[in-house]
């Protein structure tokens, strides 16, 4: 087992396309690191560079304590799980598992031991003599995992290994992946475009956009303290709501004004984010997580409220997603545009962004208590947790006065 360090790693393709741009990432020994981002953000390229399947244009890649830039994959002692499993179709499950070990001249008895151990760990014992074509998707996926496990490598690299499974199986495999990592404790780098997967699996999550690292932190920190609009919008489902708002001084605290709504902000906000004072009297981008709303009828008194008309309600049993629009133009920023483009790619993940039905109005999503009596078309008073608001600079898209950055 080993740590993996990417030190200023670049990938420039012939033709000048920069897929990965000065990536600095330190993955601790035994850590589960998830690389996440929309398609084309360079996460797969980064992974393939760690594997040695893609040449490194600049910077250093260190596995253990050696620079391995110029080593072929077979000398890096890593194992990889591919999106389409890449099982050898003409070999049985057993042969698939043993292939890499045979090439490494490991003794027959040791191969047998490792294969049967991995097979029992993954529940594959009864399929060992079958060929991949005779297996279900989930079983193939487990064989692909098994092929990595038997190698007992320094690190696992996984390239969207669950994305070919149906939703139910994906949740199940996610849980077993978690267990497996706890049990084996092998350094793992995991690539996905699915932020739910990233949040549930990662010890830490690295968010990439256009080849550049945006933020790397624990899932909780990413959720609570995103560094910019992009991370804020990418992490969390339904996605964070954005609106341009004016910050006005109001005694010790402040008022946020947007459309016909006013939210009062407690003074504690300024002690946590001192730089926010510089923005008093100016326009900022306000971010509100859907989960920081609730039906005011069911909420303790004291939080500021907004009166809205519910347009769509999604009753999920454990909560209700209320979709409503606000009489303010949607936030136009390079980073939210990137998010909208990604959401158009796979709609179900991020239902909040880029809904065209409202014309020049911002679409918001609120996640309220399932006991709420809200119905489509009904008026609803929403309480907002004003301590959990997110503030972004209108120009740069950076979080204003992020406590972690100060």
């Amino acid at each position: 087992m080993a740590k993996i360090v990417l030190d200023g790693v670049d990938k420039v393709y012939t033709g000048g396309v920069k897929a990965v741009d000065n990536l600095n990432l330190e993955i601790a020994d035994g850590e589960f690191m998830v690389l996440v981002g929309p398609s084309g953000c360079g996460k797969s390229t980064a992974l393939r560079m760690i594997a040695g399947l893609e040449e490194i244009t600049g910077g250093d890649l260190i596995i253990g304590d050696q620079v391995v830039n110029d080593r072929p994959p077979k000398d890096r002692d890593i194992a990889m799980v591919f999106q389409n499993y890449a099982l050898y179709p003409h070999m049985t499950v057993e042969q698939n598992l043993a292939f890499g070990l045979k090439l490494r001249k490991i003794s027959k008895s040791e191969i047998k031991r490792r294969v049967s151990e991995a097979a029992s760990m993954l529940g594959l014992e009864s399929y060992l003599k079958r060929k991949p074509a005779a297996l279900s998707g989930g079983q193939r996926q487990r064989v692909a995992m098994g092929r990595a496990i038997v190698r007992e490598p320094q690190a696992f690299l996984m390239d969207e290994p669950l994305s070919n499974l149906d939703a139910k199986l994906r949740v199940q495999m996610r849980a077993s992946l978690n267990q497996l990592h706890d049990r084996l404790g092998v350094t793992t780098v995991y690539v996905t475009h699915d932020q739910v997967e990233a949040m549930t699996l990662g010890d830490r999550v690295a968010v990439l956009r256009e080849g550049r690292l945006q933020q790397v932190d624990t899932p909780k920190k990413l959720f609570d303290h995103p560094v910019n609009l992009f991370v804020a919008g990418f992490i969390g489902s339904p996605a964070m709501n954005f609106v341009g708002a004016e910050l006005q001084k109001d005694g010790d605290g402040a008022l946020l004004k947007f459309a016909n709504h006013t939210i009062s902000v407690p003074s504690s906000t300024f002690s946590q984010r001192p730089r926010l004072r510089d923005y008093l009297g100016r326009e900022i981008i306000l971010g509100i997580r859907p989960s920081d709303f609730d039906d005011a009828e069911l909420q303790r008194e004291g939080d500021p409220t907004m009166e809205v008309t519910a347009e769509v309600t999604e009753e999920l049993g454990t909560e209700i997603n209320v979709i409503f629009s606000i009489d303010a133009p949607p936030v136009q920023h390079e980073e939210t545009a990137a998010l909208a483009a990604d959401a158009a790619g796979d709609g179900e993940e991020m239902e909040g962004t880029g809904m065209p039905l409202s014309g020049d109005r911002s679409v918001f999503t609120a996640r309220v208590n399932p006991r709420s009596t809200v119905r489509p078309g009904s008026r609803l008073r929403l309480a907002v947790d004003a301590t959990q608001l997110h503030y972004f600079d209108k120009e740069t898209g950076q979080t204003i006065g992020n406590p972690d950055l100060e």
Partner: protein
Amino acid sequence: MSSKVERWCGLLILLVMAVLIVIPFLSIFLASLQPAGSTVTGLSLPENWSLDNYRQAWTAAGFSTLLRNSFVVALGVVPVSVALATLAGYALGTMNLRGENGLLLFFVAGLTIPVEFIVIPLYFNLQQVGLGNSLVGVILAEIALFMPFGVYWMRNHFRAMPRELVDAARVDGASSPVILRSVLLPLARPALTTLAVLVFMWSWNQFMLVLILIQDPDSRTAPAGLGFFVGQHGLDVPLLSAGTVIVLLPILLVYLFFQRSFIAGLLQGGLKG
């Protein structure tokens, strides 16, 4: 259009095409059964069946030697062509080499050069290196001749394999030769068979190349034997037909034997693309 009508239309078209293709062969076959020297018009059933033409044709044209020569050439050409095409196709299809597109274009350009174009200079070249009038010379020339298609064919086959399969093998620790031998070749059987059958057929049917490169009539290959029936004794259609059937038969047998994987190989590219 309902699917039923569609199916019947399809069947009808196939039937018409099959008839169009089969009729000439049928007429050759029927003619070969007519008494030697008779005039043959259209599709006429012979009055008395006789295999005598075959006996005559066989001895007159010396097919035992010619067919043996043809087999020698085919046995020399097919394995070497397939092996070289596989190696080159593997490199061009999976290794992302610098300048591989230029190299591939160079190979494909070879497809556009007709053999008639190069056969005379080739004759002199082979004479110079002492391979004139020899089957070895023919074998080498044919291998080179079939290389453009072979390389293109195998390169496309390897390119159509999922890239991750090769990646997985590399991460598993396989070297390039091992990837080819243990991962790609076992999956390439349909493509290899198809290429081998095609090369066999082309080699077998090679007429002019052999005619020019080899002067000794006994060293020529089977198609050259057909020339024997034209001219020398006037045109004896039944004998010529019998000779034609003799020359055709090996190809027919090879095709029937490998039919299944031949068709699988042809379809493979289409289904994946």
